[in-house]
């Protein structure tokens, strides 16, 4: 090898499949020694054409398809899609259904954050903590299973309400789980936050400044850990959140300072587990009696959806941040357009400032720290004649100009 080729910066490709990454994404690092000089990434390896499938199905079917966009946030996507369709068709959701939606939503947040905490511990090489968090997570999974009938792919949300009521016999099950978590939270916080190894590996690692977080439109716990006060449940309440007392969890309210590093992201997520427990408790005590769906007869619901025209947007605070569904109905069985913007999509760009200047050994924990969910995110892949191509801004501009010319004749 010639001396020329050995000179820094070296290019280190990681991915699309790599043991350090839980989902396929392609990274190219420019390394100088152990330090990352620059980084680029290419998502789009897990595109499944879900929107294409949705445009050939009716809203009642799509709700179950949205469950399968992501294995962790099942209720988030179906809730956000239902909100959009309800907006178009003018369906008023009964109050009790709103509360049940909120309860399942919060249980999902608990299990998702605990899952993330386990993954974070695993990325640090702390596997005993991974097993401990995941064992604790099972409690939430069991309750979700009891409420909805399945551990994942809950299928509880339907356009117009929910499909299952929470009966009085289920209250003790929920209560027991909440008591377990409230008792465990301090222990978990101490396991993660007082541990010297975790402090050394996470403090001031993968820093995202407040300014960067705002400029890159970061959402969810990643933004909150950088001190940005955003939480859809507080800013634009949906479901029952308007009646509930939700305040965004910010690190400075609990630690007195914001670093915007991986450690702060752990703090925010773990404290949100406690917050979710409080929300569920409040929901259970304030839940009004009444029907759980606006339209019990599915045939009528299908007819209402078929008549509906217009466009709607459903926004939901997923465990990873804001999830947005855009739906357009034009008086047909299936929607004319359906666009999903998952929360990780907004967060991916924050990898670049986080990874710049960090060490190669910190890459796994920094990549995992935004809790990326790439199967949610990948929505576009351009494949033509077996070749993939990426349209840059200039290409899109050129195509747009060409179309105007064409229309002008």
């Amino acid at each position, binding site marked *: 090898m010639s001396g020329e080729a050995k000179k820094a910066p070296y290019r280190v490709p990681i991915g699309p499949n790599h043991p350090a990454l839980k989902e396929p994404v392609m990274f190219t690092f420019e390394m100088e020694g152990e330090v990352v000089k620059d980084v680029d990434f290419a998502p789009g390896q897990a595109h499944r054409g879900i929107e294409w499938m949705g445009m050939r*199905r*009716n809203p*009642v*079917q*799509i*709700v*179950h*398809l949205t*469950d*399968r966009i992501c294995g962790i946030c099942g209720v988030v996507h179906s809730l956000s899609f239902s909100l959009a369709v309800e907006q178009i068709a003018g369906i008023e959701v009964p109050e009790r259904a709103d509360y049940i939606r909120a309860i399942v939503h919060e249980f999902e947040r608990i299990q998702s954050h605990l899952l993330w905490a386990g993954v974070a511990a695993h990325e640090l090489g702390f596997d*005993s*903590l991974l097993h*401990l968090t995941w*064992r604790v997570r*099972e409690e939430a999974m*069991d309750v979700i*299973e*009891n409420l909805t*009938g*399945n551990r994942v*792919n809950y*299928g509880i949300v339907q356009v117009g309400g929910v*499909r*299952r009521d929470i009966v009085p016999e289920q209250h003790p099950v929920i209560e027991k789980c909440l008591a377990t978590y409230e008792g465990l939270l301090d*222990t978990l916080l*101490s*396991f993660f936050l*007082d*541990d*010297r190894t975790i402090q050394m590996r996470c403090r001031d690692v993968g820093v995202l400044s407040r300014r960067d977080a705002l400029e890159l439109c970061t959402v969810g716990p990643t933004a909150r850990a950088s001190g940005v006060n955003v939480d859809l449940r507080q800013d634009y309440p949906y479901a029952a959140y308007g009646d509930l007392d939700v305040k965004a969890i910010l690190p400075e309210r609990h630690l007195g300072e914001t670093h915007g590093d991986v450690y702060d992201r752990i703090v925010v997520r773990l404290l949100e587990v406690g917050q979710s427990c409080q929300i569920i408790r409040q929901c259970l005590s304030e839940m009004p009696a009444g029907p759980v769906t606006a339209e019990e007869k*599915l*045939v009528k619901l*299908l007819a209402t959806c078929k008549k509906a025209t217009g466009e709607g947007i459903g926004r939901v605070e997923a465990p990873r941040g804001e999830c947005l569904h855009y739906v357009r109905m034009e008086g047909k069985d299936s929607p004319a357009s359906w666009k999903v913007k998952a929360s990780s999509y907004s967060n991916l760009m924050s990898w670049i400032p986080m990874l710049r200047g960090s060490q190669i050994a910190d890459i796994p924990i920094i990549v995992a720290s935004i809790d990326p969910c790439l199967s949610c995110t990948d929505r576009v892949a351009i494949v033509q004649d077996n070749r993939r191509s990426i349209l840059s801004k200039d290409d899109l501009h050129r195509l747009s100009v060409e179309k105007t010319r064409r229309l002008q004749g």
Partner: protein
Amino acid sequence: MRTLPLVPELVRQLFRRPATNRFPAKYLPPSIRVFLREVQAGRAAANPPVPTPPKFRGKIAYDRDSCIGCTLCVKVCPAHAIEFIPDTKKIRVWVDQCIFCSQCTSICPKSCLSMTDAFLLAGEDRYAEELIVE
């Protein structure tokens, strides 16, 4: 501040029962399929699985006689797992495609579709007899 707060918990774990339910056997048999066949034949005993929750959505059951062939279930099935057979005016459910959403059981006007507790459905042949309900 403690430097290793997890250590006492780890020591405690040593004396607790493992949280994992060892299904189907305490130790991994050389071949799961052979082992399950032995269990079916009554020659071996399996560790029972974790019980299913109430109203669990498992393999679909179909009451052929009360079906009126209205095809509503075909309209709401997200996975296109239900096929309508015009000759007999009855349906056929391909369980290998079923996503267990239970939407067809909710829409059925005669309640002839229902979800059972069966969940051990993995197989190699998607056209196996036990994976087609009609």
